[in-house]
């Protein structure tokens, strides 16, 4: 996008000077700390700087400092992110399994797929609710979060916990899906099948949602490609990019996953916030398909190739080599790289690339020339895994004004009301 401060066609405040609006690092809606510094002219965003690092815990360092064994690090990898709490372990176990030459039994691969697709459903519904909240549509937030509890119940049933499932372990999974559990999973699938149309209707055919999200936060396909966007952020711009399709791993090659873009819903991909809602909701349906197929074709057999933990630890200690593991997390591609050396319990190198890291840069073109009232929804639309703002300081004519997040939301809600009229 060409920047042309002189000839810009601004709706109001065309001749005002540029002000700086810092937002963050504490913000109650987005959960994790990050700081945006916006340059605004009137209501229009001219430029943005993003400062990250508030949530940096040094997890890779903790894993590499020779105090923990790989199983302890597995639990650490799970706590990189509480929402993708099976995506990181899946990528990490794959990396270690490749490095140590461990085979995963087919049944364990299927269970990993089922849990990660259930996680995708919970994550996308969570995001849809947050997006509705940022638009001032709290009814929809409560609706989506109510229906999200069903998938958490199933995850709790299968894994023993609502969040942080601790399912993958090197060489397999820690829990089997028992025959009594199948009917409950099927029931949940039927529940969401019946609900999906209603959700699509509530989000996509609502004139207010459409008015607030169409043409807002556009990421052009070319920009998405150049900025290496991943996951739904890239797919909403029309890129057919999905790790499950491009480099199938685990049992994903059995399900013939196809990357979903708005074109599958009969729309021309624009890359705006509306398209991101379309992609995420359609992916809920895709995950249901995958879970159905996985349940139908579930192979019998062992769930782990190392039932005894001491034997697994001894094998890992002897292992030498390097491995790469990848997974399509709800937010996009996550990659773990591990290098093991013989005789050491911890890896020599552990490198993690999380999806939001790739998507951060796509914020820059999305924010360009948008309104201040659209900041909450654009910040939320890549489904960032880092939190954001608490209050906004506006220095106008040397006078400081403090804006809380509530006021920003109020701005956003007022805009909705304006558009309804």
């Amino acid at each position, binding site marked *: 996008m060409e920047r042309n401060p002189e000839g810009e066609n601004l709706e109001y405040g065309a001749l005002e000077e540029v002000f700086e609006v810092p937002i963050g690092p*504490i913000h109650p809606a987005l959960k994790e700390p990050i700081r945006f510094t916006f340059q605004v002219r009137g209501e229009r965003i001219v430029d943005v700087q993003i400062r990250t690092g508030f*949530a940096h*815990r040094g997890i890779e360092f903790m894993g590499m400092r020779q105090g923990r064994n790989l199983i302890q690090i597995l639990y650490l990898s799970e*706590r*990189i*992110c*509480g*929402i993708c*709490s099976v995506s990181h372990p899946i990528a990490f176990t794959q990396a270690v399994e490749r490095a140590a030459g461990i085979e995963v039994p087919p049944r364990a691969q299927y269970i990993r797929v089922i849990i990660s697709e259930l996680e995708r459903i919970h994550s996308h519904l969570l995001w849809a609710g947050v997006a509705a909240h940022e638009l001032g549509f709290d009814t929809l937030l409560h609706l989506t*979060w109510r229906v999200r509890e069903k998938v958490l119940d199933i995850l709790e049933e299968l894994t023993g916990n609502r969040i942080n499932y601790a399912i993958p372990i090197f060489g397999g999974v820690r829990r089997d899906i028992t025959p009594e559990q199948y009917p409950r999973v099927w029931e949940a699938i039927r529940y969401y099948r019946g609900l999906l149309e209603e959700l699509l209707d509530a989000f996509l055919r609502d004139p207010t949602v459409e008015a607030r999200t169409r043409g807002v936060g556009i990421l052009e396909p070319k920009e998405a490609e150049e900025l290496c966007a991943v996951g739904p952020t890239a797919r909403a711009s029309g890129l057919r990019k999905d790790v499950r399709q491009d480099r199938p791993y685990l049992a994903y090659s059995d399900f013939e996953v196809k990357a979903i873009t708005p074109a599958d819903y009969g729309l021309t991909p624009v890359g705006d916030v509306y398209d991101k809602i379309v992609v995420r909701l359609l992916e809920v349906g895709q995950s249901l398909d995958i879970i159905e197929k996985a349940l139908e074709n579930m192979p019998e057999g062992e769930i782990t190739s190392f039932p005894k933990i001491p034997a697994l630890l001894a094998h890992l200690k002897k292992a030498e080599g390097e491995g790469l593991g990848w997974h399509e997390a709800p937010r996009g591609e996550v990659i773990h790289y591990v290098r093991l050396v013989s005789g050491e319990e911890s890896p020599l190198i552990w490198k993690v690339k999380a999806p939001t890291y790739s998507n951060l840069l796509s914020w820059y073109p999305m924010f360009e020339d948008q309104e201040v009232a659209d900041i909450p929804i654009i910040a939320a639309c890549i489904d960032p895994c880092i939190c954001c703002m608490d209050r906004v300081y506006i220095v106008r004519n040397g006078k400081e004004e403090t804006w809380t997040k509530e006021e920003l939301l109020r701005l956003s809600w007022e805009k909705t009301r304006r558009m309804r009229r």
Partner: protein
Amino acid sequence: MGLSAFKRALWVFHVATGSCNGCDIEIVAALTPRYDVERFGIRLVGTPRHADVLLITGPVTRMMAERLKRIYEQTPDPKAVVVVGGCGSTSGVFYESYNLVGPVDRIIPVDVYVPGCPPRPEAIIDGVVKAVAKLEKLGAKV
């Protein structure tokens, strides 16, 4: 503790100090229809200046420590501090890192610890209810 113990509506402010999102989404889950704490008058507010209770998650990263102190100072008295999650209470799995200065009670005084990684929404509600008891005791003194 019965419902009569709630003499006033409790407003809660949530601070993430480098948490993994696990506790944070459970806090939001506690606000949404399944658990619905708003029926007790407990609601999340957007600024510490309106809050009675601080809900703190995360192991406190170096960059957040100063900000956590500032938020504590901005919260009007009487106030209660509830730490949600294992890493905020004891550091949990996050030990021996160069960038963590937690747990939370090394930075600010804490009244209630809610263990769990993450704790269930029921446990978070229980923690807030325990904070009510503290606030009432403080209220009786004034």
